[in-house]
């Protein structure tokens, strides 16, 4: 038996995106070919509605993979925690 968490992507939504999407996190089976941050963003945007609006190209969305800031070409693999959030405003 494999650990279920190791087969899935743990997606985390923060701040405005958490409110817009109506959830703080979800686990998904990474679809075939969705192996980078950019591909994952586009796949989520294809859900339409709020997802399409918030994740549209040009919208400022920051993405972190396993707690490190990611670039569009950063790889995404099963077992990763991928967080999507707006530009930060702490301090």
């Amino acid at each position: 038996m494999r650990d279920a968490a190791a087969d899935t992507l743990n997606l985390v939504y923060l701040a405005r995106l958490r409110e817009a999407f109506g959830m703080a996190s979800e686990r998904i089976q990474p679809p075939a070919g969705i192996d980078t941050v950019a591909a994952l963003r586009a796949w989520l945007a294809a859900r339409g509605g709020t997802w399409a609006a918030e994740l549209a190209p040009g919208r400022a969305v920051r993405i972190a993979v396993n707690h490190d800031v990611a670039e569009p070409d950063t790889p995404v693999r099963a077992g990763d925690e991928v967080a999507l959030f707006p530009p930060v405003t702490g301090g």
Partner: protein
Amino acid sequence: MPVRVQTEDFDVARELAVLRAGDPAIGAVAAFIGTVRDVNDSAQVATMTLEHYPGMTEKALAAIVDAAKSRWNIVDALVVHRVGALKPADQIVLVGVTSAHRGEAFAACEFIIDYLKTRAPLWKKEETGEGTRWVEARATDDDAAARWQSRE
């Protein structure tokens, strides 16, 4: 602990005393304290709620402190950042830096808060008379952080 995220308030004098305790090599202590303003973008702020990304926040803050330590000859640095519901005049964040001489402490302290504002996963939400709103990131904060890159 060089970085902490907490809901409770902090005592600046006590935090800085602990930071420099028992080290006579320290000749300078610089500190920045960020506080809640009552007016932002011309709206009266009743409550400011800070949210963060547990796990990543601590990692990002520690990385910023490490970057400061590798860049300047400082003795130590501390970051305490509050989360949760805050009122105008409340303390939000403390950055403290110790060094032998003031130049390094001042520079590293400013660097840490500039990087924190653009890299640490924290978000502010304001309650005003017109409802609640997420604070938008400011280009001036990006400019402040970028200044340090052009000096490398």
